[in-house]
């Protein structure tokens, strides 16, 4: 009931780069630049195959927002040698599950099926990496599906609209201000030609990462990859122009009134650095992103965290509450606190109470017991994640796709364990400051 009830999916504390050390990871790069990552897991005779492309909404510009996601939909609509839907039919007939997802930072496709089917995955994925056909008639139908998806996920979901509004206000020049699914007008004006151009620009072996986790032998997978992806020509892909966020110089606020909403909702986001920024220097210490993860876990994440203890229980100001930060992204994002107030509690009061909890860190930095709990949980999560091949593959692929490299997951536990209370306090002081805050209020409003 707790975490799932109030639907907005945000990366919780420690999920950014939290990862495990399952079987050993093998990494290869083909001559055409395609990267292959293989992790063995022999518990069941199944495998997950994922193909990641380094393109997502963060690569898009005004007017074509949502093009990466729309293209993802069209990737199931046929190639020069396979008709629309044939991909899905083949996967299903071979006992597979498959799908795809698009984020700010990447677009990824996957199949889960018997480990015998890895060659078929490679054959199908290699085909649509280079030979996609974007048929006008198919596009016209599918873009309506995308519009329906936007209505379902966002336009008819008030809390999602509030998060979308908060992102759009928090970022001025960073492409993270754009929704992954795109603005409605952009989706409506999108053409098959736009998609074809986007495909030509980004879909190539040297912009792709293939991840295989499962009951496979790495050498055999490499040979298969050479066979199927090896012949594909690489492309000349100019990197996107950098669009760093301009410094924020004061608090930002946005209010959203909705005749669909019945409960108010509060979204608070502080500008926060990521692992890539720390790696580049840029005034961010290497330990800071890890300290931010520990900070998020101190505040939220389980029932013993501070915001749960003090605001959901204790003062009983919030009915639901979560906080988190994604430090594993391509660009710096936000340290979020989202909350549904308890009945009769105003958003202003709840907001002040949350700020007071953040301020209280100064007088009450994380205790030894709090740090110990968080570090134990990271050790445990590291093991628990091994139970899901899909999650293992997701972690490897996402880290590669943003350019951090999968090895970040290997020392994640050690980096978290090295975080001190002083460091947590230091990142709270540095980043959770009023001038770096964006607040969105969702207000239910019944129309007469």
């Amino acid at each position, binding site marked *: 009931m707790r975490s799932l009830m109030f639907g907005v999916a945000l990366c919780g504390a420690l999920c950014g780069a939290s990862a495990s050390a399952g079987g050993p990871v093998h990494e290869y790069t083909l001559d055409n630049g395609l990267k292959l990552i293989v992790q063995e897991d022999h518990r069941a005779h199944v495998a997950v195959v994922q193909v990641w492309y380094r393109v997502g909404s963060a690569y898009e510009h005004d007017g074509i927002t949502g093009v990466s996601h729309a293209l993802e939909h069209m990737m199931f609509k046929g190639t020069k040698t396979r008709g629309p839907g044939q991909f899905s039919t083949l996967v299903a007939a071979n*006992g597979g599950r498959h799908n795809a997802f698009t984020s700010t930072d990447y677009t990824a496709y996957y199949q889960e099926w018997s480990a015998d089917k890895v060659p078929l995955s490679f054959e199908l994925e290699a085909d649509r990496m280079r030979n996609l056909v974007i048929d006008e008639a198919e596009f016209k139908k599918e873009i309506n599906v995308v519009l329906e998806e936007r209505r379902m996920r966002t336009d008819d979901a008030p809390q999602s609209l509030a998060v979308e509004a908060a992102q759009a206000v928090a970022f001025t020049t960073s492409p993270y201000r754009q929704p992954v699914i795109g603005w409605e007008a952009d989706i409506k004006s999108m053409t098959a030609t736009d998609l074809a151009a986007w495909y030509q620009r980004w879909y190539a072996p040297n912009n792709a990462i293939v991840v295989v986790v499962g009951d496979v032998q790495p050498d055999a997978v490499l040979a298969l990859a050479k066979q199927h992806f090896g012949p594909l020509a690489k492309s000349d892909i100019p990197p996107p122009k950098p669009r760093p966020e301009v410094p924020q110089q004061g608090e930002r606020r946005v209010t959203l009134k909705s005749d669909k909403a019945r409960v108010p909702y509060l979204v608070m986001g502080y500008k926060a650095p990521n692992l890539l920024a720390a790696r580049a220097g840029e005034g961010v210490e290497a330990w800071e992103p890890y300290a931010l993860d520990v900070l998020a876990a101190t505040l939220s994440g389980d029932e013993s965290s501070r915001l749960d203890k003090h605001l959901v229980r204790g003062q009983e100001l919030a009915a639901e509450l979560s906080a988190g930060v994604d430090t594993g992204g391509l660009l710096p994002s936000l340290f979020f606190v989202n909350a549904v107030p308890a009945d009769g509690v105003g958003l202003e009061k709840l907001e002040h109470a949350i700020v007071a909890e953040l301020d209280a860190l100064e007088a009450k930095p994380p205790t030894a017991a709090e740090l110990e709990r968080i570090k*134990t949980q990271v050790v445990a999560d590291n093991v628990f994640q091994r139970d899901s091949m899909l999650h293992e593959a997701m972690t490897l692929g996402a880290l590669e796709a943003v350019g951090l490299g999968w090895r970040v997951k290997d020392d994640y536990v050690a980096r978290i364990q090295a975080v001190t209370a002083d460091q947590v306090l230091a990142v709270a002081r540095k980043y959770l400051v009023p001038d770096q805050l964006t607040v969105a209020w969702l207000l239910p409003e019944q129309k007469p």
Partner: protein
Amino acid sequence: MNRAAHLLLTVGLLLASAMAAAAPRIEHWQTANGARVYFVAADENPMLDVRVVFAAGSARDGEHAGLASLTNGLMNEGAGEFDADAFSERLGATGAMFGLGAERDMAFASLRTLSEPRYATHALELFALALGKPRFDESAVQRDKARTLVGLKHRQQSPDALAEETFYASLYPRHPYGTPPDGTPASIAAIDRAAIVAFHQRYYVARNAVIAVVGALDRAGAEALAERLSQALPAGEAAPPLPAVTPAEGGLHHVDFPSIQSHVMLGLTGMRRGDPDYFPLLVGNHALGGNGLVSILFEEVRNKRGLSYSVSSAFVAMSEAGPFVASLMTDRKQQDEALDVLRTTITQFVYDGPPPAAIDAAKRNLIDGFPLRVASNRQIAEYIAMLGFYGLPLDYLETFPAQVAAVTPDAVKDAFARRLPPERLTTVVVGRAKADAAP
């Protein structure tokens, strides 16, 4: 790469397949005070999944809609000598994850912990305490009631939740499946601590429990663990059977809601777990609307016409006849067209019988895809808890592929003709009424 090399690789991958086990080996026994235990040893990762299910879902709410869910949700808010804060701090320190949930038939409590004793011992002690001695402190009861009321309001802004609530109410007007599992504002307000304590005492008992254990321990360890959890509960009595379901009469139910999309649900009362038609209905529905991106409904509604992002159908098998449900969501302006396609596709499937090729494809997907359903400890734990709860045979997983293989198109046609008469379908639409729909 030449042909010979390709074959070599294929053989290499196939060899790995011969070594892997098929269905997980399930061990089953009863604890001294009557809890049924299902255990699968899995020592690849140093972790343990424990899932305890009780016949304590909302079908047992009686006069108090929402009682089962409220009781279940309070079980980690203090137990034994620990109040909610102390309990959560102690559990958090073990690194374990504690899950709770109540559906219509069952309620569950689950624990995922590292198997190393320095973590597992303490986590399991707290888990046992929560199962047997939840405190139900008055302050926690009042807080959770208030939070539930906010949750109910939140449901009122979700067309999906409204559609589901209306759907169950329409299909089960005189059956406990028909009341909303989270209750209503009035029913929640009327629940007091005494009702919660009484519900826990009646239903959270060993003879009403199934304990599923998956993870890195041996049979002796699993027996000790199950015995420890079971001893935390009184023996008690199993819950009585639920009343049989009387099929509803069909009809159209519209809920006015200011959404852009209309949410459409179509269905009727379907089948029980262990139903003799289970496999023909499963296979037939897999072809009709169960098989993700390639089902007949997906093809007709989405691929051919672009009418909905999501469209699917399912037979939800429950203790008593659960629903058959087909659903989609679409812009209000094309609601009538979408509903017509949905209804016509189902009707044709029933009257004309399924295309044999579709049945063949559905069977292959279910059979070849079976290993995916039991690939993780979490999935295995959920599966064996379900087996135990519904009293399905121990070899259910092992025989699943053969049962699916035996289904013929004729058997599907016959079962659907009897079990899915299109004229009895109930239709629920949540969205703007026609009059004020935007042009």
